């Protein structure tokens, strides 16, 4: 690996000052499961690596914060997959976090890092989109809250400035009953990146939100407002037709890795229908247990 300097700030102001000083020559280190690979293969060249792990304000905790759940920048996938509050209110996110990489990766990889890395195939991102998550960034001008749907630009690119870092991901607690699920298609069982990754939430108000990744430069969020997808009595044929209309923005690259574009598109629709069915079943279960 090419040599770089290492800084280990102990508070957020110091971290922001380092980023302001070094700009794009600095890279932020959280879990390192993406960054260290790319520093080693040379696709990222950093002069300074700023490690967030000794910043007291950025512990790995998940906090209840007045109707919102705040996931700190150092919270790893293992902790998210195991958190009972996330399992109850944001089940799609819990399921997505539990399939990222392997145990060893999930023990290091952070949600904030997954978001900042902005891979089109990131499993947690569709879940964040359907759950209406906000990304909280801090920079020289202070804090700002960015809706997750406005955060991603294209593969590896976000709206984050070179002098900003993500300090938390916030999830608004649902105000109505919901059923949510994450599904994906991989080449093999176990440890693999997704050829299609998709999350779905069906609300008691009849609104269905779906988000999918690995089918274009960034994950996309779509909404079915009129209750067709959420209707347990509507036919699969009608739902497939609706899904086809909703998924019109999918644009898998012809040079895409892991699976061809035709296969990805076909599987997107299959997984979409399965996810809607499962989310409806989970919503019904919650209605019954009330």
């Amino acid at each position, binding site marked *: 690996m090419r040599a770089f300097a290492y*800084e280990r700030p102990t508070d957020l102001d110091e971290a922001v000052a380092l980023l302001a000083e070094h700009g794009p020559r600095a890279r932020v280190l959280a879990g390192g*499961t993406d960054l*260290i690979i790319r520093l*080693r293969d040379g696709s990222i060249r950093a002069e300074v690596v700023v490690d967030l792990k000794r910043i007291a304000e950025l512990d790995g905790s998940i906090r209840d914060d007045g109707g919102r759940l705040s996931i700190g920048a150092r919270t790893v996938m293992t902790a998210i997959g195991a958190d009972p509050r996330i399992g109850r209110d944001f089940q799609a996110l819990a399921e997505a976090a539990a399939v990222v990489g392997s*145990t060893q*990766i999930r*023990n290091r990889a952070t949600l904030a890092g997954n978001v900042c890395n902005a891979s089109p195939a990131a499993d947690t991102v569709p879940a964040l989109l359907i759950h209406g998550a906000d990304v909280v960034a801090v920079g020289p001008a202070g804090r700002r809250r960015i809706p997750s749907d406005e955060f991603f630009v294209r593969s590896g690119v976000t709206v984050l400035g070179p002098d900003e870092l993500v300090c938390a991901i916030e999830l608004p607690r649902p105000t109505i009953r919901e059923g949510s699920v994450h599904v994906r298609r991989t080449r093999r069982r*176990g*440890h693999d990146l997704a050829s299609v990754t998709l999350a779905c939430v069906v609300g008691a108000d009849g609104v269905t939100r779906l988000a999918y990744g690995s089918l274009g430069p960034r994950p996309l969020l779509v909404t079915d407002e009129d209750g067709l997808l959420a209707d347990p009595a509507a036919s699969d044929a009608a739902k497939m037709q609706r899904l086809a209309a909703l998924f019109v923005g999918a644009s898998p690259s012809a040079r895409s890795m892991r699976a061809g574009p035709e296969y990805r598109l076909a599987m997107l629709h299959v997984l979409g229908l399965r996810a809607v069915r499962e989310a409806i079943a989970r919503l019904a279960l919650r209605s019954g247990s009330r």
Partner: protein
Amino acid sequence: MTFARRIDLTVNGRPHRLEIAVHHTLLEVLRDDLGLTGTKECCLVGECGACTVLLDGISVDSCLVLAVEADGAEVTTVEGLAVDGRLHPLQEAFLATGAAQCGFCIPGQLVAATALLADDPQPTRAAVEEGIAGNLCRCGGYEQIIEAILGAAAVMAADGPAGGEADSVARGDPGR
């Protein structure tokens, strides 16, 4: 700006103070600076698990951790599993079932299995498959490896309190 740094690292219960280059990984420091070559270098992208160690009791790919990130931590490598020359029940089980073929992945498999059993002392077969999904075996010896882990879990449960041994390893207990 710092390119080298002094770190404190406890490895298999023994404390070390080391002067390291900050761009060196924990894997490189374990193998090259400390001579602990049981931990293997293989894919270097977090796919194969041959470099798995316990960092404060948690399994990690040491090729994706900078050594400087481990400053102040307790590390357990495969060399730390046996106590006073007595093999860990997992090591005994791997031998008994012939789980090692070429052997290259085995240190990582053993350390990953140690973490798995510390979390879940009586895992189902599915939990074992998921627990070692990050450890590839190019000989394809998965059946024997899974059998060995399930066998070791049974032995450790039958031995009662001795089952706590894996716990203390997985938590990086320095008192060993």
